[in-house]
């Protein structure tokens, strides 16, 4: 009678398991090597497509489009309302604050960091606008610039005013510090005003062009310079 297993039997069993494990391991190594060494094309450097910000360029209506308004006063008001699309645009309003602090962005939020207009509108003597703002827009930092970078005088504050109030303010030399001829020149030729159409840094420009805006201002003045209510 055989009542116990031969001492060699477990050893043979262990050997079988060992061989099976070894074969599996060797197969895995071989598969990994085949996968790693299988020739395939190397990834090539590819140019990343630069996504230009899609800016909605708004047009200004041409002066000729207002000729249909027979009443001169009404035509003049309509012309100024068209000009108001530029005047009340954030690119212009941000530098016409009613406080000593400019505003920023299309949301016209207070300027960050904190800055103040100072005695000449170009910043406090110890924190000038030119600490950050150069003579041109700087695309690397996105900081806008112009050689004349400064705020409009506080008497020319536009924030919180209706278009009619802004209109009467523009025509009042005591507040605008400009005659009508100077006002026209400011609107149609001033380089800092012109920045509004070339703001850089993905900012939305004012509607139309400075030349079109100047033509509207001229037509408005030529029709009597009437103001909305």
């Amino acid at each position: 009678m055989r009542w116990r297993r031969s001492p060699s039997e477990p050893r043979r069993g262990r050997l079988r398991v060992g061989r099976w494990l070894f074969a599996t391991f060797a197969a895995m190594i071989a598969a990994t090597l085949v996968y790693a060494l299988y020739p395939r094309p190397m990834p090539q450097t590819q140019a990343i497509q630069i996504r230009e910000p899609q800016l909605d360029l708004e047009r200004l209506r041409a002066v000729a489009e207002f000729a249909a308004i027979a009443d001169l006063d009404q035509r003049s008001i309509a012309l100024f309302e068209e000009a108001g699309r530029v005047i009340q645009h954030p690119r212009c309003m941000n530098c016409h604050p009613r406080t000593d602090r400019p505003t920023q962005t299309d949301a016209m939020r207070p300027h960050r960091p904190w800055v103040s207009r100072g005695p000449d509108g170009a910043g406090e003597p110890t924190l000038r606008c030119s600490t950050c703002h150069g003579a041109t827009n700087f695309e690397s930092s996105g900081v806008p610039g112009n050689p004349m970078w400064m705020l409009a005088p506080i008497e020319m504050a536009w924030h919180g005013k209706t278009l009619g109030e802004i209109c009467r303010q523009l025509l009042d030399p005591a507040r605008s510090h400009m005659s009508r001829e100077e006002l026209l020149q400011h609107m149609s030729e001033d380089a800092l005003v012109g920045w509004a159409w070339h703001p850089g840094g993905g900012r939305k420009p004012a509607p139309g062009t400075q030349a079109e805006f100047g033509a509207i201002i001229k037509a408005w003045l030529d029709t009597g310079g009437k103001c909305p209510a």
Partner: protein
Amino acid sequence: MSYAISVNGQVHHVEDDGQTPLLWVLRDTLKLTGTKYGCGVAQCGACTVHVDGTPTRSCTLPLEVAASARITTIESIEGVEAQAIRGAWVARDVPQCGFCQSGQIMSAVALLRTLKTPTDRDIDVAMSGNICRCATYNRIRAAIHDAAAQLGTAR
């Protein structure tokens, strides 16, 4: 393109794009790493250097513009105001993490060169463009007052 740039009294010839921010040139090319990169968009003041004696954010100053000016960085700021500021900074143990401090010091020195006895408001106005994430503002303000007082005594 090659630019001759005057930094800390030495003229360096730099081969780079003219639109490279001065901060990149200072840190990467000239290895003047005392001037810090904080935000890159002129919001924090950590990169402040003096351009012809005026505090300016080097992250938003193109190399082609900086090349025509005299640049001074934290590594070589000197004069009685700088010494007074340095002494007050140490005495008050102003820095916490220290990252913004070179910019703070450059603005503080420029302030004392403009106003000999600045008030709290003067300090707030001049330093408002220099942000400190550790909020050491009270110590900065106190140290500027100390430096001004020391300069007043010395005079």
